[in-house]
């Protein structure tokens, strides 16, 4: 095989195939979710079976609202879905190897957001924010945060989980909750000391590229009930950055897990720790490596989340963490591809619910969080293995 052929093969296997998979997932989930949203819009134009809680405000045509907002919902949902997918990967990787829910992962994600903020503040106070290249800025934020969060996750594993590896399963879970609580207040204390406040706002408005640039995606009008209805959406630079960096990192992760020797080691350990160790694989090293990779992805997700929403507090990790866990379970926990699919599906669902709920006077957007939990509970009851997971029979 010539070098060219090998390069082509490599590209096909580790770049094009995952890219194709991601594109397929996006298109498929977008189609399914759009169909769902349109169906909901159609069915609920008049209250379903007359249930008054499902009555919209008068003068609101739900189907029309769905149609005009659909492109917006898709863009929003996919952007946040990528962030969820990246956090979900941290849960899934650790679950695959240690069979335990790393509750502190949501706090690693939060630390990532805070580190990103600190890096941005560092450049801001050096008066570099307006002049420096935005790509460099984002890279600096992502890399710093990935390194710190990866090491943090390894440290957490060493200190709080490793001594408990043989304990009953609830013991490390409780320890993880403890770590998560500790980290929240620890970060709060540091930020309170350093900045005298802990509600941090990303100074994105100082970076012209991040605050002003929008790319129009669709801008058209359709005929609806005899009038022209605008259907338009645009995507801002933040979301583009989120999506591109997420895709790059997912491709990198795919290569690492499936294409390198270390990745093979991780996969071996997740299949059977005992046999893997007999084959000369350093199990402890592989577990640390898993935490390093998962933590780094979580940290990057924190930066992207901060860029997208603009606000980070020490207590912000909990809800996105729970949603990302839902995404991991939805896709099949322990399954790397599943986490991606689950994240995008959940992001879309959330975008739909939070933009449709305000049309119902009896509901309101406050309920949008309930849907994530409801989905989590429904999946665990009806398909605990997730969409892409395999059913594992219990060994006696």
């Amino acid at each position, binding site marked *: 095989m010539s070098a060219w052929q090998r390069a082509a093969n490599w590209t096909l296997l580790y770049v094009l195939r995952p890219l194709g998979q991601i594109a397929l997932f996006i298109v498929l989930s977008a189609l399914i979710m759009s169909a769902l949203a349109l169906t909901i819009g159609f069915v609920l134009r008049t209250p379903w079976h007359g249930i008054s809680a499902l009555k919209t405000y008068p003068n609101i045509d739900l189907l029309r609202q769905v149609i005009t907002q659909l492109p917006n919902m898709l863009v929003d949902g996919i952007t946040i879905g990528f962030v969820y997918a990246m956090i979900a990967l941290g849960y899934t990787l650790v679950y695959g190897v240690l069979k335990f829910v790393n509750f502190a992962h949501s706090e690693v994600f939060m630390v990532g957001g805070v580190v990103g903020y600190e890096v941005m503040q560092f450049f801001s106070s050096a008066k570099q924010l307006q002049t420096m290249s935005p790509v460099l800025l984002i890279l600096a934020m992502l890399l710093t945060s990935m390194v710190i969060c990866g090491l943090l996750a390894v440290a957490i594993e060493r200190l709080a989980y490793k001594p*408990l590896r043989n304990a009953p399963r609830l013991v490390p879970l409780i320890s993880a909750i403890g770590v998560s609580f500790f980290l929240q207040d620890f970060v709060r*204390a540091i930020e309170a000391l350093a900045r005298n406040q802990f509600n941090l706002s990303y100074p994105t408005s100082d970076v012209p590229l991040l605050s002003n640039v929008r790319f129009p995606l669709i801008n058209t009008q359709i005929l609806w009930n005899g009038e022209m209805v605008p259907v338009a959406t645009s995507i801002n630079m933040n979301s583009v950055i989120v999506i591109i960096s997420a895709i790059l990192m997912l491709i990198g992760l795919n290569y690492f897990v499936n294409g390198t020797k270390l990745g093979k080691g991780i996969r071996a350990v997740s299949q059977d720790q005992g046999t893997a160790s007999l084959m000369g694989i350093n199990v402890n090293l592989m577990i640390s490596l898993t935490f390093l990779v998962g933590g780094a992805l979580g940290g990057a997700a924190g930066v992207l989340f901060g860029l997208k929403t603009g606000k980070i507090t020490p207590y912000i990790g909990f809800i996105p963490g729970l949603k990302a866990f839902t995404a991991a379970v939805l896709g099949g926990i322990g399954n790397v591809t599943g986490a991606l699919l689950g994240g995008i599906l959940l992001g879309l669902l959330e975008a739909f619910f939070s933009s449709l709920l305000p049309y119902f006077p009896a509901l*309101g957007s406050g309920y949008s969080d309930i849907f994530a939990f409801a989905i989590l509970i429904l999946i665990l*009851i009806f398909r605990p293995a997730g969409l892409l997971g395999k059913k594992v029979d219990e060994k006696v």
Partner: protein
Amino acid sequence: MATQEQPRPLNPVQSLAVRQPVIAGVLFIAIATGILLIITRQQLLFPFWSSIAFPMLAVSPFIVFALKIPTRIKLLLVLVVILLIIPYLGLKDSFYLELAVQIGIFAAMAMGLNIVVGFAGLLDLGYIAFFAVGAYLWGIFASKEGDTYINQIHAVTTPESFYLFLFGGIALAAIAGILLGLPVLRLKGDYLAIVTLGFGEMIRVLVSNLSNISSDPTITINITNGAQGLSGIASPPLPQFVFDAVGGIANLLGIKIGNIEGITYQFFFYFLVLFIGLIAALIAARLDNSPIGRAWTAIREDEIAARAMGVPLVRMKLLAFATGASFAGAMGVIYAAKQTFVSPESFSFNQSIFILVIVIVGGMGSIRGVVLGAVAVTLLNLQILPNLSLLLNSFKNSNEVSASVQNFFKSIPSQLEPAKYQRFVFGILLVLMMIYRPAGILPASRRKLEIDEQMGKAKDEALPRSDVEPEGPFITEDPNNAA
């Protein structure tokens, strides 16, 4: 035996505790009470002494029970502390009574969670939801201000119906427990924990959004008043002679009371919580030693084996959820009546973890341990950490300390007040407990055996294999030592 090992020389405190246990116990209680009687709120070091002496007094029943004293004297000493010393201190400074009531509420709830987590081994991270069910049940029906929102719902209830609602809260929480239990029956371990967490969050989101359920935008039907919460909740009425009696006793003891109604209600809730807490402990202890408790133990230790032995899994798990929830439901009703205010903030994930910390610090499965955990964790949360903040502040502002000391304390930013860092403390506490004492301070012997066996046995194996469950402990025929 000639070569008997020489016992280590005891220090004076130990030797007193061994040789004169009665005197040691009385002395311990007396020192704590004495400090509490001497100090006054005006003193600079009041927060320091008070947060040493009151926890001493609160754990004294456990110390007394640990000493080798005839049971009758033990009971006498404990009763003196609970029925004489704490009420007397409460009469002087109602804050102590408030602390005691909070300890009681959390102890009773922790006993409920202990049934689910400690007895049946089902980790519930949304336990506070049942507390919310009870609190909002009484809150919605007895909130005077709620009247304006909820179309005269208050008219159908009177404050006297509090006792009826106490049972209503128990029943409703038990139903909520079964509703939670039904879908999660098949789940185990981590999954169960996350789903219960989701359930708890759902209840919180629900109560913070039920501020309008009307589909007509011109009308508002408000049930829980959203994030602002319900205020002006009625307390059960007390006959006049109770107020007179409290006032009379205070006069007799020469204590001036400003707000006699408030303090009487504190006493009422103190004794109510004490009474219900005792009943809860009795129920929990009886359940633990019953066929039901043994079925729970079997499920906890090995679900498949339990099923094979004919333990009805569905019924037993639902029973655990329902019983555990009912404790929280009762306490929720009492809490709403005591605080006269409920808001979704009191029912956050934090609070669920707070109760879990109590159970874990005290000892999963051990009723005594859970009560001790409630004392320790509640006091840490409500007294010791706020007192540290107070101490810092008074050092900053007091003229009694030298300028350099004052400047040192002024250099500590106000953002670092200890009272705001409960999660920091609880987080470290959880991790350390899990690593060094996973069975708790006062472990249930059975539970300790399980954990030791599992961890100790796995160490002997050449390979760490987390997916293979080691065999359970060898069970002797005496299950009574489980408590």
